[in-house]
């Protein structure tokens, strides 16, 4: 939602596409490829325009959103000495990395799958700088340092200059503020060049609707040649409709270590993208015994909070909570049925290891405009198809809902469950919204 991380490769592509519009006094080679395997890299090297892969020493590293790749020993820049990595070395290294799971220093683990490969850029520590921009509170902030690389984060306060740019600041004032805050330890001969690069960088960050943009390090070589060695970027995806042509078909990968979405989550996300209503599903623990089908974003949070509270207070744990999600914004009967089918299917795949009952929480606050009876019709249809499976897993259903037409909705769902022999308790707005969680878990 809103802020989405993009690959380093895509960030650099955006730079290169816009380079002349923002950084016309500077030069940027943009020699980068994104590959998933050694074979793909080797194939790429045969394409026109990528001859450099065979001609120059290379650097290879994973491009999967996580940082501190150097510290994680995941940057290939030497075999014996820096700058001696050949195409064959890089391909071999990539193939080795994708062959097993990798655990980062943070504990995140998963299999590496995307790599960025670039020419090795010989340079000195003095040529490295740091620059980034993001939004803090209501303002944009530009960060600049004469020191780039891993060192900048240690001793951040001493090494980094901040420029706060309020949303209504004029370009003249913004440029003035940046010029006045260029780090003192940038050598005098580079100062003017850095100034104009920093101003261009800020405008690029702003106009491209980045939420976060960091180059660390940016290397200033001779003849105004810039090398973007490492880049981290997040876009404000709500600006997508404005930026469609500029961004192109950009990918928002899931964070490394996060299990890829399950087919069920993908199916719900797909239904969500095609609907005017909102359908969200995250599976937290497929073996969990408490499954929720909650209407509304806010309500889904309080249900999750309350389930965690009561599970822990009653001898269970957070692992009891199987899923998080919500449906809202007036979904159609068939959308609701599909959502209920998905939840019930997931819920009835595994027997509870301790032999406990399954709990299905059909919760929601008092709706503003969603027709409760209509959405419940979809749930009832799903009950009708899945009743036997639900009974096999000793499913206890707890319902609480209010809003337009709620009396009918509650009456219908109670009658249907009774008719199908399902165990159900039904409550309306006179019962506190999350009190069904207490009822379900205190037993």
């Amino acid at each position: 939602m809103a802020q989405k991380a993009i690959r380093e490769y895509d960030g650099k592509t955006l730079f290169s596409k816009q380079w002349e519009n923002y950084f016309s006094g500077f030069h940027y080679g943009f020699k980068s490829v994104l590959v998933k395997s050694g074979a793909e890299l080797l194939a790429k090297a045969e394409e026109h325009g990528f001859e450099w892969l065979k001609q120059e020493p290379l650097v290879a590293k994973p491009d999967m959103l996580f940082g501190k790749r150097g510290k994680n020993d995941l940057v290939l820049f030497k075999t014996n000495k820096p700058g001696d990595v050949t195409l064959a070395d890089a391909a071999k290294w990539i193939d080795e990395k994708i062959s097993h799971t990798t655990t980062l220093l943070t504990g995140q683990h998963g299999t590496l799958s995307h790599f960025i490969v670039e020419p090795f850029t010989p340079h000195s520590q003095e040529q490295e700088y740091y620059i980034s921009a993001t939004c803090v509170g209501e303002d944009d902030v530009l960060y600049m340092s004469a020191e780039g690389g891993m060192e900048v984060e240690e001793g951040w306060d001493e090494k980094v200059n901040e420029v706060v740019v309020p949303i209504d600041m004029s370009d003249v004032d913004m440029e003035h503020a940046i010029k006045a805050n260029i780090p003192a330890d940038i050598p005098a001969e580079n100062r003017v060049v850095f100034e104009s690069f920093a101003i261009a960088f800020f405008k690029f960050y702003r106009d491209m609707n980045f939420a976060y943009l960091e180059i660390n390090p940016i290397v200033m070589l001779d003849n105004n040649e810039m090398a973007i060695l490492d880049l981290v970027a997040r876009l404000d995806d709500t600006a997508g409709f404005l930026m469609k042509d500029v961004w192109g078909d950009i990918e928002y990968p899931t964070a490394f270590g996060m299990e890829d979405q399950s087919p069920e989550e993908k199916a719900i996300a797909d239904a969500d993208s095609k609907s005017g209503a909102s359908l969200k599903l995250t599976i937290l623990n497929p073996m969990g015994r408490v499954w929720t089908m909650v209407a509304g974003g806010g309500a889904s949070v309080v249900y999750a909070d309350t389930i965690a509270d009561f599970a822990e207070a009653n001898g269970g744990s957070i692992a009891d909570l199987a899923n998080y999600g919500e449906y809202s914004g007036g979904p159609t009967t068939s959308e609701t049925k599909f959502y209920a089918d998905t939840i019930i299917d997931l819920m009835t795949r595994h027997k509870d290891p301790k032999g406990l009952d399954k709990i299905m929480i059909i919760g929601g606050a008092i709706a503003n405009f969603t027709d409760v009876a209509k959405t419940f019709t979809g749930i009832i249809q799903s009950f009708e198809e899945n009743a036997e499976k639900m009974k096999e897993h000793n499913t206890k259903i707890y319902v609480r809902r209010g809003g337009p037409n709620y009396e009918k909705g509650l009456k219908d769902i109670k009658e249907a469950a009774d008719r199908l022999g399902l165990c159900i308790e039904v409550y309306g707005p006179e019962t506190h919204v999350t009190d069904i969680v207490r009822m379900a878990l205190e037993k």
Partner: protein
Amino acid sequence: MEKLYTKDTQAIFWNNNKTAIQRMLDYDYTIQRKTPSVAAIVAPTSGNKFEKFFYGPDEVMIPLYKTTTAAKKEHANAEVLLNFASFRTAYDVTMEAIELGGFSSIMVTAEGIPERLARKMNNTARNAGVTVIGPATVGAIAPGAFKIANIGGTIENIVNSKLHRAGSCGLVTRSGGLFNELSNIIAINADGIAEGVAIGGDRFVGSVFIDNMLRMEKNPEVKYMVLLGEVGGTEEYKIIEAIKDGRITKPVIAWCIGTIAKHFSTGVQFGHAGASANADAETAAAKNKAMAEAGIYVPASFNDLPATINKVYSDMLAKGIISEIPEPKMSLVPKVRRSKQFICTISDDRGEECTYAGFPISSVATPDTGKGIGDVISLLWFKKQYPQWATEFIETVIKTVADHGPAVSGAHNAKVTARAGKSVVESLVTGLLTIGPRFGGAIDGAAKYFKYADDNDLDPKAFLKYMKGEGVPIPGIGHRIKSLKNPDLRVTGLMNYAAEHFPSTPLLDYAKSVEALTTSKKENLILNVDGTIGILMVDMWRALGYSESEINEFIESGTLNAFFIVGRSIGFIGHVLDEKRLAMPMYRHPMDDILYDVQEAEKL
């Protein structure tokens, strides 16, 4: 501003969201507001001029406009804008309204406005002193006074949740769904709310908790406040600061939802776009703890919130800070309502006597009333009481156009039909059907083109050039035999009347300058009677204070032609009766008056 809305607050609703607007009007009727809370609707793509809504059992019409500017111009008192535009246009709509001025608050419902635009919008509003509610919100409510769109849900829920009259709690939430829930909790455990705002779920919202709570601090109806925060952001700490430095003194009950987030290190987004903890201080647990330490009433869990509210309320009630609220009278919105098929805004036959625009027929009919046919026309056609110079001008026009002999096409048609044995009405309509662009239509055309030229400051030469470009002769100019030397006395009469009685005749003056040019080319190119009538009608309406767009509408809708139709009907009926009286036989046109040129059809 100590209260966000009062019982007199009126809104302009951007987007014709009929269900939401109907909910507002049902609310207004229930709480017995004097005027509907929606004054106007902006519907950029609608061709309609109004939309019908129920107000209790009856229907009211709410005007539609294409732009906020047009709506605001006609409804200057409506100082709330309810911006229901999509995330694509919501920013532009808000910025236009701020630029326009005169709005004290703007509610923005769209979710997912680009963050940079949202920041710009919120900043511009703040600098202009405009309170923005949202984006990504269901709105706000001042119970018993004003309710935005769908907030509070159905009318049944509103009454159950005591949202129909002011209670003593000030409520702020992020989430719209939980706003209703909290209203319900507060109604069950206390006496309802005095003012409530769902600030919206996006990361950048216009007014935040502190803005709304500082206003509620000043609102005497608010005795205590309930804040429902969320994981993420630091807005709750501003409340703590305000309590510490004494800007907030009323008791505050608060809870931050999203305590679940602590169990999941990354990846899962719990709740809204604005709800994501970037630092320890932004977690729900940290905020709940900090608020409790600052003396805010913080329950042990969300499930315990009702009990906390009940305790604070009961204490204040016992101490006499809050007194029992008498239940006000309410009007009941009928369950079944039927929309009317027809609308009438000119006459009404439901009372003792039928009225013309509010005037009983007897008050305009007889000579002693001093009213003539011009007065009746001004009432039934324009719903206005025109001054005497105008009604007499209308009568002069009608008398002037009543007939022009048997040879003109309309009269001829009427006569031929009458001679075929048809009735008066059949013969009359045959004549009337001839009226159009070529017969009688010059009145419309003259008014349209001369007004266009005058509006666009075309000098006579440029006007002639323009008409040449259009490829039409200038309507209202030219006569078969009359000329400057041999003037049309009907025209002279109309002009003399206007000179003597009209406050001013700018369009006629312009038309005369055109006539001076055309007659210099050919002397019968004078301003004729059709042209003079059309042009003077425009001058009449201008002098009566109609706007140019209203006058254009009269021209477009064929009102000018209508004067000709009424007038000439008198003459047509005369010709028809003449035929009946003379018992003339069926008419057959002489064959020698027809050029026969019939060729054998070609085979294709």
